């Protein structure tokens, strides 16, 4: 009996199939919101699911000049890391499946591995578009991952712990977004940069480099990468909502808070033109300065949080 509980948690609920379904649903909500902002109808509810099913049924073409083990293994690695990161996040407001002191770093690191496997997949081929996309992904990784982690450390400092469930419980009593608005903005922009959402989608700019690092992927590999990205979206939104928006205590607040964040995210997606890669790479300078300011404020306010 003891072994059944973790297996269900790992494969079905709340990680595993549930978080995959949640990821697809949030992808649909994102597309529908962007369509609403652009005054048009978006796709129907089953579109991301249909896309994944179609991709899984198509032939996977392995190009020449690639290492086939890496080609097939990297999507699996990406999805595995994303799902493992979901094990530590407080999905649906329940306690995370696994939890230990310092798991914030492990979670963010696992999410970075997703981006890095994307870049590695791009540089694996001889296709020029993939190579340029891989280089751009890595450039953006340096620019956005570090500020994202540092911005999540702000609430960790105030809560006095590096364990996600503890920070979640602490944030349940304090709305940290009010005392650390700069950190919130940086975390949100960092999430957009990690996920390569417009306007930070230079690594997969459709009109310049076809699909960036994923140009050569089709069929199963592409489906797994897309699933990994959608799980990353859910986990990222959960973390930001849990840390800044007053913690997640039950399923209702989970859906409410993450959907509000998704509304803001979709709005930011539709407002700006795409940045060139050297323009996005300037972000780390501003982000570091702003984060320093934020931390000074935290130090000054001391233990006096709202």
């Amino acid at each position, binding site marked *: 009996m003891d072994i059944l509980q973790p297996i269900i948690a790992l494969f079905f609920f709340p990680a595993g199939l549930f978080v995959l379904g949640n990821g697809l649903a949030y992808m649909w909500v994102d597309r529908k919101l962007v369509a609403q*902002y*652009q*005054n*048009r109808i978006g796709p129907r509810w089953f579109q991301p699911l249909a896309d994944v099913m179609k991709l899984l049924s198509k032939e996977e073409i392995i190009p020449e000049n690639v290492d086939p083990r890496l080609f097939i293994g990297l999507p699996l690695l990406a999805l595995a890391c994303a799902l493992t990161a979901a094990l530590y996040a407080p999905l649906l407001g329940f306690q995370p499946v696994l939890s230990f002191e310092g798991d914030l770093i492990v979670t963010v690191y696992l999410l970075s591995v997703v981006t890095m496997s994307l870049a590695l997949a791009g540089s694996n081929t001889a296709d*020029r*578009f993939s190579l*340029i996309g891989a280089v751009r992904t890595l450039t953006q990784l340096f620019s956005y991952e570090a500020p994202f982690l540092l911005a999540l450390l702000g609430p960790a400092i105030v809560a006095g712990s590096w364990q996600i469930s503890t920070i979640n419980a602490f944030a349940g009593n304090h709305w940290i977004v009010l005392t650390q608005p700069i950190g919130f903005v940086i975390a949100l922009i960092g999430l957009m940069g990690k996920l390569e959402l*417009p*306007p930070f*989608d*230079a690594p997969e*700019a*459709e*009109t*310049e*480099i*076809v699909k960036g690092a994923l140009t050569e992927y089709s069929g199963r590999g592409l489906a797994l990468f897309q699933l990994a990205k959608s799980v990353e979206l859910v986990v990222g939104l959960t973390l930001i909502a849990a840390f800044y928006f007053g913690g997640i205590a039950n399923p209702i607040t989970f859906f409410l808070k993450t959907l509000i964040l998704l509304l803001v995210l979709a709005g930011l997606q*539709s*407002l*700006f*033109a*795409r*940045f*060139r*890669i*050297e*323009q996005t790479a300037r972000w780390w300078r501003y982000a570091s300065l702003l984060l320093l300011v934020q931390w000074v404020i935290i130090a000054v306010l001391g233990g006096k949080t709202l």
Partner: protein
Amino acid sequence: MTTLEKFIVPIGPQHPALKEPGHFEFTVDGETVTAATVRLGYVHRGIEKATENRNWTQNLYLLERICGICSHTHALCYSLGVEALAEVTAPPRAQAIRSLVAELERVHSHLLWLGVAAHEAGFDTLFMYSWRDRETIMDVLEGLTGNRVNYSANVLGGVKFDVDDKQTDTIRRGIDYLEERTHHYLSVVTTDNTFVQRTRGVGTLPREQAEDIGVIGPMARASGIARDVRVDAPYAAYAQFPVNVIVETAGDLEARFVVRLKELFESYRLIREILEKMPTGDLTVRMPRKVKEGETISRVEAPRGEAFYFIKSNGGEKPERVKVRTPSLCNFTSVIATAPGHQLADMPMILAGIDPCFSCNDRMVVLNGESLMTWEQLRQYGIEYYK
């Protein structure tokens, strides 16, 4: 000791940046472009040869379908040429209606271009909104002519339909709405920083270089060359309704946006003026079935620049030769000239900035050597070439 191979990024023939096939090779060093080449010819359909087998009226509709968004200008240019050969002048009301449809088409084309250029920059919201507003002008054109593109307004000797009061009302209301939206787009394009940092200073073509290369149309006007066929050689009703030429001096991508958007305002003004002062009279004039022998040249300002037709008749029912030179052909070399030094991410924007219309272009076949080929020889040459 092997030398480093050049890293060439091919854009086209199939690429999400291009709406029609064309091949551009950019030699890239990191993200900076160092050289560029152009290759066209993917959409060659043999239209000039096909005109020799159809009579004068049938050719009107064949040539209208060279391009979807400059279709009226092709038909207009051809009609003007054939009418000049037959020594027939269309009545003033028909000329005014021809100019009206030409200006409405210019509005349609520039709104379409705004959306496409915004899409190349990654600004999908502007793309969606400008194409939503383009639906207004397409509905106006559908109510006026019967179709959203390929208006089929011209006949040899005049126009097919009349503009009555109800049409005038619809056109005016559509233009009022669009004018408001164009003000908004002009301010977005010139003040939104995320967009401006993609267009200001990008793809600069100084005036001397522009004259050297020979660019025409809004590209040239954005570099300070004030050339517009409607002013230099007025045709249809433009002598009666004069046009102000919009010129910008910066020569970069932003200037091209501004020129095209300001031309929209000029078109709105012209449309209102034509509707107000429409001359009365017939719609068509009698046109002989056999056109007199001779050669003629006609030029028209398409939304992309000057369209040029050479028509030769030998007195029969079918033309002897129709030669078409469309404006986009002159602008492609500017891509090669302005690309080096820019980032790869600027390439789609520079391409969109010349407003390329590949299907208009592919018409020239260059024969190496001095020989004259018969039709069968040419077909055999083509079959061998593609083996």
